[in-house]
């Protein structure tokens, strides 16, 4: 229920600055995902918003109020940790109630809030158990439940799905999405290194790299108009083909980017000719890795099942409207439409 603003925020450890001049304004009720490779500073930024790390430069505002020197518990935030961070010696109920006791809530009110959160996450049968009697997925739900009971203005998630197995990760992702629907008005900030989580959950994505913001935008925005070669390579699965050499030079660029799904495949004719090196069949899609003469290795997505053999000669044609060109420093050329 609050805006979160970061104004010229930076973070240094001694002489080393790890975050540089971060400016961001998150709207009330927005779901924002910080994404980037490990070491990009996304977790540090989240921990600065939480108050677990000092802000060494700039200002943090929550709901319009400066928060730099406010204690974590007084910021109106809740945080879900990657490692769950449950108190091992307390039951699920006690874990969820501990912070509320500290906030001097009455016993009936504590019980009501815990029960409400437990119902929302379907963990009522677990309330009397200790964390070690729970599975990883259940622990993460308890951690989320604990965060809900605090009734926060801003919800922070630090890689909450990283310790879960693949199937559970998808379920929990859906659950977090529906939680955002139900907790209307609660701003959510979510850190992940997984661009699929970012694409599926976010209203807006903040791409961080090397301590600076590379781009801020809606998932489709980042997909269609990456503001840098880094974003182009980071967003989208499988990765965009980033080709160097004559194919890029002909366009006056250093790098020529084209997504696997934006290349037309043919056995008879096309702009590029090459030989199939590897085929990956996923059922719904087939990914064909082609060694192309004069262009390099190109990954192509074919919908459905494709019976293509290794060593076969194939023809490829990139969709001219979906080509992304970049200078050597990673900045984009204004998009070029080759008709």
């Amino acid at each position, binding site marked *: 229920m609050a805006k979160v603003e970061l104004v010229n925020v930076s973070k240094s450890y001694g002489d080393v600055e790890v975050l540089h001049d971060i400016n961001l304004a998150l709207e009330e009720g927005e779901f924002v995902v910080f994404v980037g490779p490990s070491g990009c500073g996304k977790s540090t930024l989240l921990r600065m918003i939480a108050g677990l790390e000092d802000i060494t430069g700039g200002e943090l505002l929550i709901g319009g109020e400066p928060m730099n020197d406010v*204690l*974590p*518990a007084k910021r109106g935030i809740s*945080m879900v940790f990657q*490692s769950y961070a449950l108190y*091992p*010696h307390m039951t699920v109920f006690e874990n969820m109630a*501990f912070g509320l006791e500290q*906030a001097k809530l009455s016993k009936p009110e504590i019980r009501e809030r815990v029960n409400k959160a437990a119902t929302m996450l379907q963990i009522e049968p677990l309330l009397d158990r200790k964390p070690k009697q729970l599975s990883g997925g259940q622990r993460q739900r308890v951690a989320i439940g*604990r965060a809900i009971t605090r009734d926060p203005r801003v919800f922070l998630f630090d890689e909450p799905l990283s310790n879960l197995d693949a199937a559970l990760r998808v379920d929990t992702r859906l659950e977090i999405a529906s939680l955002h629907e139900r907790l209307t008005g609660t701003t959510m900030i979510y850190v992940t290194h997984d661009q699929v989580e970012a694409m599926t959950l976010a209203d807006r994505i903040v791409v961080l790299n090397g301590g600076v913001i590379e781009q801020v935008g809606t998932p489709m925005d980042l997909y269609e108009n990456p503001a840098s070669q880094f974003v182009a390579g980071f967003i989208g699965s499988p990765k965009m083909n980033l080709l160097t050499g004559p194919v890029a030079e002909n366009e006056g660029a250093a790098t020529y980017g084209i997504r696997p799904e934006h290349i037309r495949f043919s056995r008879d004719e096309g702009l590029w000719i090459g030989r199939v090196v590897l085929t990956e069949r996923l059922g719904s899609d087939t990914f064909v890795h082609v060694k192309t003469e004069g262009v390099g290795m190109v990954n192509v997505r074919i919908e459905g099942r494709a019976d293509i053999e290794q060593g076969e000669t194939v023809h490829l044609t990139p969709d001219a409207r979906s080509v992304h060109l970049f200078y050597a420093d990673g900045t984009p050329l204004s998009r070029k439409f080759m008709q």
Partner: protein
Amino acid sequence: MGKSRSLLSRTRTRSAWLVLLPMLVTLFVVAAWPLGRTIWFSFTDASLDLMADAQFVGIRNYLEYVKFGDEDGQYYGLLADARWWRSVWNTIYFAVVSVSFETLFGLVIALVLNQQFRGRGLVRAAVLIPWAIPTIVSAKMWAWMMHDQFGILNDMFQRLGLISEPVAWTASPDTAMIAVMIVDIWKTTPFMALLILAGLQMVPQDIYEAAKLDGVPAFRTFRRVTLPLILPAILVAVVFRTLDALRVFDIIYVLTPNTDATRTMSVYARENLFDYDQFAYGSAASTLLFLVIAVITITFIMATRMDLEGKRS
């Protein structure tokens, strides 16, 4: 089950016993056999020069009623010996007070050493020094510091005006036990600190961050989060130290020999075994010492429901 056990599992069982054998033999030779001999001698009339001819005399060394005539008589034996009971009391008093202070100081030092600060590695190593010094050496060192005429303690306290005339710390019955306990606490607090520090380092850091977000003040975090989580480590440390303290011998033997005020069960047993040539009687004292330690330890473990097999973690 016996018949259905596979060849593989029988082979495993056999190699397990084979690996255990050296330990079992060693334990028998250095622990079970001497203990058994001591218990046997406590029921005989053995003396130092006549050990081979020892005759069984029943529980006479422990308790015996000697009739002097009609309606008259007296109890003899260890259980009727006031000096023995005094040394039992001394031992328990020493163990309870020393171990309590060692636990308290050890906990405080461990909490400090668990914090990040410059030179922590050096301080951690330095803290261990008192424990690394052989007991005889540190007891002798303290004996000099506590010396009534030349000791540095009396000198310092007099300069500070805390005492008006020199105190015979180790010789005076009023201060002898305190002197012994101070040396023991100084010496073994590092051991406590180290065991508790190991427990502290098992506590995951993220729950401290969760506590910060929950707005829990530092002291309450310690009482509600840290302490319950390190309690098992503290209890194990307390058992180790209590076992040690109940057998205390060397500090007292060096610092305050022959004082009723500090005579412990071990000192009492040694006096009888070797000084007074009452080998059987000393054996009985040793046997009772063993029983007292066993009973106290088992009671403590059961009372605290200690998790010695690691089932709960």
